[in-house]
């Protein structure tokens, strides 16, 4: 099912066009929103929330029209903003419960639910402390709790691991991963940290210059054309390389004793060719895996293309 379906969306701020003929489809699950600064991610999220009226085009979020159903969309969405956004003078439980009341929850339900989500986000012990006294990681998790208090179907998380140390990142990414896989909550994560996106997301949408650059699963994005394999040898073997080249394969040397082998054969045939050639040449194979590039390499290629 399409969670977000945007068609030919154009958003202008007076003379500046922030999104130009932007179309994308985001499916259920966890999706990463990638793009350099000024790419149009801000405007995209603002448009989804109904803050910005599209100049042209439009779309739907959870089947609701972004141009006319802003309030209903926000009822079904939870936003975790990038900036600190606590309400001065409130404890964590008071703040999260208040967010629930703003979403329409009765006060008694909101306070009960606030305890639950704060516990889920790992703030059980600190929930009676004033949010202003929290560390950065705790503030981030409080923002996550306020976003999910009313049980939204879609969470928009903006730079959720910003400014966090490795432990804090893990504490933040674990619930995001958990909630977006098997809990019925869909998540869109906007982040510049590609390892974080790779850790929690299944798909990505890459935006640049107000236009969609690419979208799809991370697996597809990292996929290399030509069905290459990475072969890790025990020690260098020139004859192995020569024999493979003779049989029509392209061999590219990687780090240390690793090689990238590209054949134009079927996968099973390729594996058979590599292993038989190694056997004939006396090359000892330590590892054989289908080659893929890093998400960073894929992202840079998309951005630079």
């Amino acid at each position, binding site marked *: 099912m399409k969670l977000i379906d945007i068609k030919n969306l154009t958003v202008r701020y007076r003379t500046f066009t922030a999104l130009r003929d932007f179309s994308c489809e985001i499916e259920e699950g966890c999706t990463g929103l990638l793009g350099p600064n000024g790419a149009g991610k801000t405007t995209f999220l603002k448009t989804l929330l109904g803050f910005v009226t599209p100049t042209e085009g439009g779309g739907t979020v959870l089947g609701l029209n972004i141009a006319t159903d802003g309030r*209903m969309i926000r009822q079904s969405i939870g936003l975790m903003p990038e900036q600190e956004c606590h309400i001065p003078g409130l404890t964590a439980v008071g703040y999260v419960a208040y967010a629930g009341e703003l979403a329409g929850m009765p006060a008694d339900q909101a306070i009960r639910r606030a305890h639950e989500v704060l516990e889920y986000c790992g703030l059980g012990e600190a929930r009676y402390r004033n949010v202003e006294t929290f560390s950065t990681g705790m503030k981030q998790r409080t923002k996550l709790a306020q976003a999910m208090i009313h049980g939204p179907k879609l969470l928009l998380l903006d730079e959720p691991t910003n400014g966090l140390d490795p432990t804090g990142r893990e504490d933040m990414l674990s619930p995001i991963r958990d909630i977006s896989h098997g809990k019925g909550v869909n998540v869109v994560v906007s982040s510049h940290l590609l390892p974080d996106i790779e850790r929690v997301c299944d798909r990505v949408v890459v935006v640049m210059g107000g236009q969609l650059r690419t979208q799809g699963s991370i697996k597809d994005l990292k996929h290399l054309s030509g069905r290459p394999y990475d072969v890790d040898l025990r020690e260098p073997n020139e004859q192995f390389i020569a024999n493979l080249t003779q049989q029509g394969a392209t061999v590219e040397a990687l780090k240390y004793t690793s090689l990238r082998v590209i054949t134009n054969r079927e996968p099973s045939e390729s594996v058979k060719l590599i292993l038989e050639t190694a056997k004939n040449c006396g090359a000892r194979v330590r590892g054989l895996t289908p080659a893929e590039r890093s998400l960073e390499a894929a992202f840079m290629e998309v951005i630079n293309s």
Partner: protein
Amino acid sequence: MKNSPIADLSYRHYDGPLNGGATRWWSIAKLSIQLAMKKKGFWVWAVLSGYWYYILLAVFWFVESFIPSPVPGKHPLLSAIIWKDQFSNAFNISQLLLFVIALLIGTGTIANDNRANALLVYLSKPCTKLDYIIGKWMGVFIPITIVSLIPTLFFFAYGGLSFQEYGFISDWWLLPKLVLICCLPGALHASLCIGISSLFNQGRIAGAVYSGLFFLPWFFTKAMQVVYVVLSNNDNPKGKASLKFVGNLYYASMDGIQIGVSKAILNTGGSALFPGGGSPRGTQFVPIPPPNGTAITVIFIAICVIFSGIAWLRVRAVEVV
């Protein structure tokens, strides 16, 4: 098993009841009121704001209980009291203290949200800009109105029970009129506070600006009051001719407007705080007549609308990423 939590800490979807959109403003107002009530200063100034009523209560109770009437029948001192003017006087005197309360609870109402980026929390939830503005407005209006109303109603109840034979309730519309004038400070301060507060990122700066806006015309209008009394006690014909103009200038401040509307509602120019009031040098108390009721009401409403409009223009969905 030993390390298992007592409760189920895994994520569960919320499928409980949800209120309609009409109650969102109340959630916002409720929090503003709760935060105001947490401030000790609010309680101190709230109690002090009714001090003139406490003085009146003490004086009237003392007169009634301990000063015997020199003539049989009604007590001449109490007979000379114009009761609605006592409400008018108490209302005038409470203005400065109600302003302090507004300064304390109102000027940071939107500015502090701006500073803490809290608008993102409000506007990313299913509440509209109108809910937010109304909630913030009510969050200032309700406490100030209650603070203004409680001593007024208490004095009304005391007077109604004790001094009915002295014409305390000569006008059966007095109670609705009193309720209406008690709403005036709340409405004006709420509108001014949200308008000014929305222009700044810090409550203190908003408070400083609001103080300036209040006190500069306040000093001017108090000076006009002195000028009015001096001109009234002077036989100069030119001075007499300019009395009306000077009298109108007396209402050209935040508290002056409220006093003007309250006088128009109560239909009184006011009288001395106590009968026979005047200075030892012979200057007699001269009440400033009420302004044109329609004009002052239009000005009052216009100020409320303009400053609420400023808040409406300034509050908007800010940067998300």
